[in-house]
Every structure is written in structure tokens, then in C-alpha cells.
């Protein structure tokens, strides 16, 4: 198990985005001295498999998670905001962007080794009954590789994509994950899923109208850590439904992703114990490090 950098810090290219924001080489992001929250979380922000070394910083996305983590006995917790929010700050949507259309739909997935109990066909019916525009289904890489699952959604007339593999243990890391996700979400006017998850919060911040409906597809032997799906529905009830109050959703996404409290690069570098950016004159002008 790794700390500073925990291998999870590189999931989805999170540390790559932050390195770019900090003016560092985003092909080889430096080691973050601390644990970085890597998904929207109803617990203490950290993955359950983390092994903690005392005194090591935990960087979480939102003030709400910080409060919760503190109450759960975590210390050295600091709100930095989500890498997604930094990515959006780095890549504002162009004014002349093509018109958004349709829905990007994320069927809830498990992780490696978790298998979903649920009915894809039932879900497909609900999607068809609800969405009026074209639908893009984004599958987790595991399901995307499964031809049967893919074919199910394709036969329904949906476009089927995957944002890629999140990576792990510094192997098969995918620094392009978030970029692809942002590009796809910005093509769509709605983002939907059968569970409130990172993708919904991301999409909302990226300008999509969110929706959460359909069979939540329980995982086989799913553990209800921090209250699980039942608590999500209870606590974030207003984020569920085929149509959600947009102002509320945006305020929530801003808060949950810490988008209103991003750090200046100098502060982020200091806390991660990252080096100062190279003195590359071109970089000052273009924001691109030549390699």
C-alpha cells in the first residue's frame, strides 16, 4: 500500500491534471505527499482500502467531507477541491462550442471483482421512456470490454463509449481519462445515471442538467459503508429524479467538488511538496511545457 503518493492519487489522471494546473510536467506528475480523494464520497473522502500513516495529509474535495472526516477521527485533512474542478478551470468551455444535445448516461458499475446484480434491459427501457434526445451510454471499462453488455445497449440504439481505464498501481495509468470525460459531457445537455455518483456531480459542474433515476443495481454482497445507497437517497434526495432543480444541483456540485475554493498553484505545490515550475520561457507564454 502506498502513501504520498498513494497509487489512488493517479487514478483517472487526477495528479496529472493537478500537475498541469501547477505548471508542472503532467506526463510525469510528481509524488503527492498525502492522500487525495479520488471520487465523490459519502464517507471520509478516502478509499476503504487505504492504509494510513499518521501525520500524512489527506486532501479532500469539499468542506462537507472535511467536517465528516474530522468527525470520523481523521486529522491533517485539507480541502483542495476536486481535480475535475481544476480541469474545468483550466479548460473553460469555448464560447463557440457546438450546441449540446442529448444525454450522457452512466449505468452504475462496480469495480474490478464486483459484479452487478441487476437488469440492464429494465434500465434500457427506463432510459428510452425518459430521454427525448440521443443517448450516449458510457460504460465502465470492464463492461465495455464485455461484448454482451455492450451489445445490449447498442441494440437499444444508444451510442456506447467508455472514458477508459482508471489505472492503478502506476500501471496502465490513463492521464487522458478526465479529458475524454469532459469532452464527452460537453457534447451533451443532460447527464444521467441510476445512482448519484462522481459522474453526475462532474456533469452538473460541466454544464449538464443532471438526472438520477432507474434501478440502482445493487452490487452482489454490497456493503453499506457510511449508510450506502439508502443514505445517499435520504441525504441527497433532491438530486434524484428525472428532472432536478438546476440551481440546487449546481450549488451542490460546486460545493461537493470544492469548485468555489480552488487553491492557487503556489499553495497546492507547497502542500503537495511539489517543486516549483521549471523556468521555461515558452511555458510562461503558452502554458505548454515542450518535451
Amino acid at each position, binding site marked *: 500500500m*502506498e*502513501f504520498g503518493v498513494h497509487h489512488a492519487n493517479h487514478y483517472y489522471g487526477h495528479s496529472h491534471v493537478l500537475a*498541469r*494546473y*501547477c*505548471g*508542472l510536467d503532467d506526463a510525469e506528475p510528481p509524488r503527492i505527499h*498525502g492522500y487525495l480523494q479520488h471520487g465523490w464520497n459519502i464517507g471520509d473522502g478516502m478509499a476503504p482500502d487505504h492504509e494510513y*500513516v*499518521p*501525520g*500524512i*495529509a*489527506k*486532501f479532500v474535495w469539499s*468542506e462537507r467531507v*472535511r467536517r465528516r472526516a474530522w468527525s470520523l477521527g481523521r*486529522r*491533517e*485533512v*485539507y*480541502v483542495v477541491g476536486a481535480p475535475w*474542478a*481544476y480541469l*474545468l*478551470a*483550466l479548460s*473553460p*468551455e469555448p464560447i463557440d462550442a457546438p450546441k449540446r444535445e442529448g444525454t450522457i448516461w452512466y449505468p452504475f458499475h462496480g469495480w474490478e471483482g464486483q459484479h452487478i446484480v441487476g437488469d440492464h434491459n429494465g434500465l434500457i427501457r427506463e432510459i428510452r421512456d425518459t430521454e427525448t434526445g440521443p443517448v450516449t451510454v458510457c460504460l465502465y471499462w470492464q463492461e465495455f470490454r464485455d461484448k454482451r453488455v455492450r451489445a445490449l445497449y447498442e441494440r437499444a440504439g444508444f451510442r456506447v463509449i467508455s472514458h477508459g481505464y482508471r489505472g492503478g498501481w502506476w500501471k496502465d495509468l490513463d492521464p487522458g481519462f478526465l479529458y475524454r470525460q469532459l469532452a464527452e459531457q460537453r457534447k451533451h445537455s443532460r447527464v444521467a445515471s441510476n445512482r448519484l455518483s462522481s459522474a453526475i456531480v462532474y456533469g*452538473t*459542474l*460541466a*454544464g449538464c442538467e443532471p438526472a438520477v433515476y432507474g434501478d440502482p443495481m445493487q452490487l452482489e454482497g454490497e456493503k453499506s459503508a457510511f449508510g450506502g445507497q439508502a443514505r445517499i437517497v435520504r441525504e441527497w434526495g433532491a438530486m434524484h429524479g428525472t428532472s432536478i432543480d438546476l*440551481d440546487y444541483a*449546481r*450549488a451542490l*456540485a*460546486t*460545493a461537493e467538488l470544492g*469548485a*468555489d*475554493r*480552488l*487553491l*492557487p*498553484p*503556489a*499553495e*497546492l*505545490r*507547497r*502542500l503537495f511538496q511539489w517543486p*516549483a*515550475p521549471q523556468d521555461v520561457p515558452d*511555458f*510562461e507564454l*503558452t*502554458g505548454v511545457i515542450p518535451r
Partner: protein
Amino acid sequence: MTTLIGGEMLAWSDLDGSHGPAPAGGDALRSLLPAVSGRTLVAGPHSPQLVAALPTTDVTVLIRGDLDAPAFDTPVLCGSLEKLETLPAYDTVLALDGLGRLHSAEAPPFTWDETLTQLLALLKPDGRLLLGHENLFGVHRLTALPPAPADADWTVPDDHDPARPAGHPRLLARLTAAGLRISRDYAAYPSLTAPTVLLSEEALAAPTVTGALQAAVATALAPTADTLADPVRMATAAFRHDLGAALAPAWVVIAERGTPQPTSTPDAVLDSAPADLAELPQGRTLADHLLAAAQRRDLPALRELLTAWQSGPAAGVPATQIVAAIPTPTGLLPPDTADSVLPDTAPVAPTPASAASSGPAAGSPTGGRVALSPLAPAGEPLQALRAFAAEVIAGGYAHLWPIQADEAELTAVLAGMTGRELEPGEVPASPTPATHSVGDLLADRERLTRELSEARAKHEWYEKMLLHREAELKRVRQMNALLSATVPGKAAAGLVGGLRAGKRAVRSVVRRTRGN
């Protein structure tokens, strides 16, 4: 002219400070002298400069040690108060040193009440008394280590004694009961005999100038000896709790017999100079705002305040010496501003590194709305920032940051919060503290113990990881050796060798061609 009245102490001086505290004096007390008029008795040790500054010519000084008599140009009565002829002869009695040094060692002990009665017996029916009184529960005593008694302490003022008024309200009540009307009363900092700050009831009741008052008190209380706890931190906390008078080291009261006469003494004396309340900057200190934001965990507000401070002309002024005026009463941002950060407009974010050269204030949503009024001259900005970091650590606010509570490191993070790139090594060294507080030392020990155990845990983890990586490296090397021995491995090695030979051949051809 010196008159020995009886009870005088030979070879004794209260003025030289060798047997007890120095006499009452200083420019702050000088600001009260407009209240002095007519025939005046200066009772007890007062500095000759103060006596010389009295706005009246008819001055008599009462002292107990014969060595002090030559210091005064005025008539001197040398001896013990109770020996003085009890005639109500004086228009003004000045007892700014309090009632503790009016009797000599020859005199039987008198209570505070008895001493006051003796003093008031000298005052004309319409006379005026200027009286100092040490607060035995003042911040100076609450934070002090047990003192060694001085020669003058053959009896000491004691708060077990019901005859000595304990607390500000009781002092005023006792004077009123003695037939006086109080026209002015001041809380005095940092001590009875050498105050540099005098705050009238009116000043203490003015909520808008609390920052300027706290800044002055902080300067006044800068410790000169080891303490139990930081007196500045305690005094500023006392002000926040509206205890600025209750916990003042001393009080100075101006009271009259008969009809109170208007006095032209100032509402406040700050840094030994009279101050007009209407002209003081309004608001709380910047340090107060910063720590409040830290305690609320309001990082955006903290960043904005730090940036406003460090990017402006007040950057070199300590945060405790700046009054900050901020438009909204509760904080920086009106509650609705957070909602304006919507994805449609792209999140309002601090400038990414690619544009960071445009300046540290860039990206501040309410930039320029914080007005800072410095109350002290500016020094080196990084020293000021470091002093704030030191206060954050010593005051117990450092757990907001997920770093070891090291002054230089925290200073660098604070600089980072303003967008400034700073390595801890570039932070100027702090001056070696001349004094220590026992409480801070204990907290430091506690913190260092924790940090050491954390460092050990980290070390163990690194050790474990190193072993893991070494094993992995060994395995990869073995696999490499094994693969190179196989047929495809040899073929690959041969292929690479062939390619290298080919590259060499091409290069030599190119060279020869160029040579032609």
C-alpha cells in the same frame, strides 16, 4: 526645600527602582495632567519628569526616602503619610502610584481603606483626586511567574484583604462611598507605574475602534520576562470578551469631591500619545479577521485576506497592527456570491500556473474590497507573515493546515495562499525569542513528541516500501537474465546488436558523404 515629617527612611529610594518598581511616570500619564490644578500634593513615588510637567506651580511632593528628595525642584515632604498634618489643604492630590508606597517601614500597617481616608483628609472639599490602583487579577499577574518579593514588599497588596477593593466595579464603588464623584476612569496597560495605554470607559465601550485598541494593548504587553502564558494573547481575548477593563493591569480614576468639574483628559492614550476616538481606524485587527476565518475553516476568505495584506503597502506590518475594514459584518463574501460560481461561466478559480505571472491578487472575487489601515511602520513582509505563522502555531490554530507546525513551512504555505511561490528556506529566520511562555513550551513539547512519532511511522513505512521495491527489482532482474538466455531473448539481443551495427554503418556513410 525638604521637610522631614517623621517616619522617613534613610538611604532609601523609591525612584531608582532598586527596592521595587520604578515610580509612576511616562508620557501616557502626562496626558492626564490637564486634570491637575491649584495647590497640588504629589503623594508617593512619581517620576521627577512627570512632576516637572504639572501645569501648576504650587506643588508639594510626599516621599518616604530621603535619597529621593534632591530629585525634585518643588517642596518635598519626606516621611510617612500618617505623620502629615491632616488639613484639607490641597486642590489636587495626585496618587498615580497607588496607595502602596505612602507609608514607610516605620509605620504600622494601614489598610487600603485607612490609607484612602488619610489621603482624602488632605483634599479640599471641592478637591480632585487622581488615583492609580493595581488590579491583582490583571493579565500581567495572571500570566506572570511567581515574583520574588522586593525590599519594598514588607507588606504586599493582597486580594484576600476585604479592605482593598478587588475589581474595577468595587474600586469605583469604594471611591463613591468615600464621597467622591468619578469624572473619568481608565484601564491602564501594561502596568500601574508605567502605562503606555489608557482606555477610558467611553473608549472601551466603542465597538468600532476595538481593533486599534487591541493593537495598542498588544504592543504595550509585549513580554519582557518569561511568562506562564502569552499576555498579549490573553489580553486580546479579554477584549473580545469585553473584559478589557476587568483584566487591565491597573486602573486610573479621576474623582472629585463636590461637583465634578469637566476635565480635558483624552478618551484614550495609545502608545503613550493621546488619541481621538473619532480619528481611529474602525474595525477589528487583521489578525482577528484572519484567525476568525481560520477557525471557520473559511479558506477562500483566508486566502483573500492574506492576499489583500501581502499584496498591499501594509505587507510588512504585523497583522496584529493592522485594522481591517471589511464591508460585510460576518465575513468577506455575502452568502449569495458562492452561488455565482456556476459552470456556465466556468468556475471562478485562482489563476492556473500558466497565467500566475499576472499577479497574486488575480482571481480574487472581491479583490480590493478589504481596506487595511496600518498602525505601525512596515518592516520586511516575510517577517510579518512569519510572525503571523508563529502566532497561528502558538495560538493553537495550526491544525487547520495538514503540515507539521513549523514556522518557516507554514509561512511558505501562507505565501502560497496568496499565490506567491516561496520555499521554506527563503523565509527569513525569526529573531531568537528573548522570553518564553511556559504554556507555549509545554505545547511545543507535546507537538514535537507527536511529530516525532509521526516521523517514525513514516520512516517505518518508507523502510517497508524500500524492501518491497528491492524485492521487485530483484525479481525483474532475474526475469531479465532468464529471458536473455532463451532463444527469442538471444535473437532479440542479436537483433539489437545488428541494428546498432547498422546505425554505425549508416553514420559512417553519412560522414563520408558529408566529407565529400
